[in-house]
């Protein structure tokens, strides 16, 4: 990168909004995944206008550009794979408008997910998508990755909660799509941009739905002695068309790590638990809680416990949301996957994952969104053991192959990024991918915006790329 570009960026944004020293850049080399990439320069714009100017400058210098929120992503979406400029949105973190009457908020991309919910709490409202990293991840990042979370089972993912976006296109043009209305005439461009992983445009403002808090919430903890009983309960809850707001599963191995860490009162001697939440009107909640308790008992739950109060509920959720971090205490490094399967295939899939763990002599924890079939097998390893790392990659690949074979998907909420892009041919034909590539080209013609993400590079078609050696444990909450 030419020093002249840095000078121009400083002239544009001021010296406090540009980082280019090696020790500063190191902090932006990674995200929550096991990927790495070295940017040449970090910029902190304060306005859409500045973002547009940065993009125009980058175009003059033909430099790659990557948008970044809090860097909690789990697929390398915010990593500068080909170097270049990383645009960090942390200074664009204002909530621009709270429109209570219309249940909308207009926010800048750097607003932290949970901060929005806190800002509307007094109105008895919240922002429904709740990724486990919600204390630090940003709404801009949620939009780019189409983030989910435990409660997306009932409320949907980010795409279901975005009605309008302001974008800066790779040529620097500023465009708005959608708005506060639930529909605008024309193609559903919001639907395309949400989840496009920052490869089509940079998101500079978002209009989101706000959701009214439910009247009643009940949190149940069902404790099991076998994994099969646990997964069969989830299948039966689905089959009976009971729709809890969240249905999370933690296996015994994970639980023990979590309990030692957060002391939430999880039983340490069980095979697995289900953490189930029902929400809505008091009458609905009572009826659903009773139905769920019955299903769990039919399938051999040794105990079904209801959280007595908010404190107990918060503790259970603290355990769930900090589980990745807890496992990080047991192992220098872990590799978390995000495959999705039809919910009725859960029992055989969990058996398959155990089998794969034994085959490759790896410890795999399971903590995931069971209710929508979104798995998070978490493979523990030590990055200094290269042979073990290769087994991790092979095991991960086999789990993914299984998900695809039963009719599932590669990722439910973490994104493809640079972690799974070479796996895309497992799901998509060359024609599918060619069309996606063409859509990307129509917005991002020379591919300088977030290069090397989502679509396979074609270097190892259908094969697993061996990831670079990771440097340190990460714990994306």
């Amino acid at each position, binding site marked *: 990168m030419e020093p002249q570009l840095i000078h121009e960026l400083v002239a544009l944004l001021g010296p406090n909004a540009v980082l280019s020293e090696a020790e500063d850049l190191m902090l932006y080399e990674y995200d929550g995944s096991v990927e790495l990439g070295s940017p040449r320069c970090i910029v902190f714009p304060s306005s859409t206008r500045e973002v547009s100017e940065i993009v125009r400058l980058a175009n003059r210098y033909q430099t790659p550009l990557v948008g970044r929120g809090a860097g909690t992503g789990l697929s390398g979406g915010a990593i500068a794979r080909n170097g270049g400029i990383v645009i960090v949105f942390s200074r664009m973190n204002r909530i621009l408008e709270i429109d209570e009457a219309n249940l909308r908020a207009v926010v800048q991309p750097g607003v932290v997910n949970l901060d929005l919910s806190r800002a509307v709490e007094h109105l008895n409202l919240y922002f429904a998508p709740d990724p486990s990293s919600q204390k630090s991840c940003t709404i801009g990042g949620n939009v780019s990755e189409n983030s989910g979370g435990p409660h997306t089972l009932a409320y949907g993912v980010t795409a279901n909660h975005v009605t309008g976006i302001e974008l800066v296109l790779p040529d620097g043009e500023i465009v708005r799509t959608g708005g506060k209305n639930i529909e605008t005439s024309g193609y559903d461009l919001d639907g395309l941009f949400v989840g496009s992983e920052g490869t089509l445009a940079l998101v500079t403002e978002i209009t989101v739905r706000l959701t009214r808090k439910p009247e009643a919430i009940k949190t149940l903890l069902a404790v099991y002695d076998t994994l099969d009983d646990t997964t069969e309960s989830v299948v039966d809850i689905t089959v009976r068309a009971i729709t809890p707001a969240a249905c999370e599963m933690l296996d015994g191995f994970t639980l023990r790590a979590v309990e030692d860490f957060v002391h939430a009162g999880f039983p340490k001697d069980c095979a697995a638990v289900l953490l189930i939440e029902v929400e809505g009107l008091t009458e609905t909640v009572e009826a659903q809680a009773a139905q769920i308790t019955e299903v769990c008992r039919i399938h051999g739950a040794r105990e079904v416990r209801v959280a007595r109060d908010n404190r107990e509920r918060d503790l259970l959720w603290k355990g769930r949301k900090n589980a990745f971090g807890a496992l990080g205490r047991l192992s220098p490094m872990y590799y978390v996957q995000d495959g999705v399967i039809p919910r009725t295939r859960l029992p055989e899939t969990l058996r398959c994952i155990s089998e794969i763990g034994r085959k490759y002599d790896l410890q795999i924890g399971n903590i995931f969104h069971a209710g929508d079939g979104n798995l998070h097998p978490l493979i523990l390893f030590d990055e200094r053991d290269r042979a073990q790392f290769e087994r991790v990659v092979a095991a991960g690949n086999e789990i993914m192959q299984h998900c695809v074979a039963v009719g599932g998907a590669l990722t439910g909420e973490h994104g493809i990024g640079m972690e799974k892009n070479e796996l895309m041919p497992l799901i998509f034909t060359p024609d599918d991918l060619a069309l996606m590539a063409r859509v990307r*080209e129509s917005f991002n013609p020379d591919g300088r915006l977030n290069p090397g993400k989502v679509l396979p590079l074609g270097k190892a078609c259908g094969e697993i790329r061996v990831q670079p050696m990771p440097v340190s444990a990460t714990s994306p909450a």
Partner: protein
Amino acid sequence: MSLPAQATLTRLEEISGAAHVFTEQTDVESRQVNGLCPSAVVRPADVAQIAEIIRFAAAEQLAVIPCGGGTKLGIGSPPLRYDIALDVSRLNRVLAYDARDLTLGVEPGIRIEDLLRVLGEQKQFLPLAVPFSDRATIGGIVAANSSSPLRHAYGGVRDFCLGMEFVTGEGTVAKSGGRVVKNVTGYDLHKLLIGSLGTLAVITRVNFRTFPLPPSQGTFAASFSDAEAAFSFCRAIAHSVLTPQMVEVAGPSAAHLLFSSDTTARVEPRMWSVIVSAAGQPEVVDRLAHELGHMASKSAAEEFMPLGDSAAQSILTRIREFPKIVLEAAPSATIFRIGSIPTAMAGLLGELAGVATRNRLDLITLTRASGIVYAAFLPPEGGLSTITAMINMAREVFQTCGKPEIDASAMIEWCPPEVKRAGGGVWGPPRNDFALMRRVKAAFDPRGVLSPGRFAGGI
């Protein structure tokens, strides 16, 4: 057709068989789009035939318009060209229905009524209470993004469609999304097809999540002396913890269309009515009945009543079929579909009434409290309909919607051809994201084979 017509027919017959290519006047007229007839109607058997037809059309620069039940061919701008009607009604199978997993994959030609029957056997449904239900097919419902009152509780097609397979304007079979309920693998290209009116691709498979039928249901009607009171009732519902299935506001002149003569509800003409449906456990429905009644009286309702089963069924059907009922009563009606936020609705409806009066037209409105206003402008009873008045009205409606305090997004779903061809067209003034839509069109259909000209911005 640029090719000699006979050569085109021969090729279509080679692809789909002579028994599935139609050229009789009645056949082509039944597939006319805004007065333009195709040279031939072809009914392919499968995806491979569709791809081949499109590739042939692309090579010969022929224009293709996909269709199913043919109930919504009138929507959109008049096509620039139209050679082949591609009728997908033979692709009408349920490809995969995993009731245990609450997921479904269907072909585009299946009629919504038939599909709902299949789902009903498993006590499930899709929240698509859409017009022309006796003939409308899934492909058309998705391509026109037909409006359903159930969107209030379940979201629109974009919220419960999991993925699609489709044939692009180059005859390439492609897909996006998948069959599982949560998925961020690749770009959500299928979302672009929802509401695209067949301008990007021919839909060949749609995957949905399905929903359990609620154990019990109740429907209530409240009447109010003015719009402000009716909307204050809607606001009270929105600010409560209650989650009804639908909340519909019928303007005064809509009452006689929506309430059949046999209904027990004595809804006064010139009243504003709000129709609310509740679903869930019987206790939940009972509670909604009680609390809605209380809210209605606080909003100065003249009347609030639960509807009996047959009255409820009748009004729900009429709400679902609203555009069809209006068009049957007044074939020359102009029906706007307007996306609006709740706080702007009462003001918008007031302005629309003013537009109607100024142009000496009647106005019938049905508003989904979740954010869609249906406004039908009709020639007054016994009065002369002047096309000039309709054209003038349309211009004023688009202007009204563009006012900052209203900020609504309007399109005309149904109108006489003269209104379509007038200055504003059916899509209203261009927005700044039309340029992006052109890029999307170029990626899917670079040669302009599919429904050229029907979409916003001349796409």
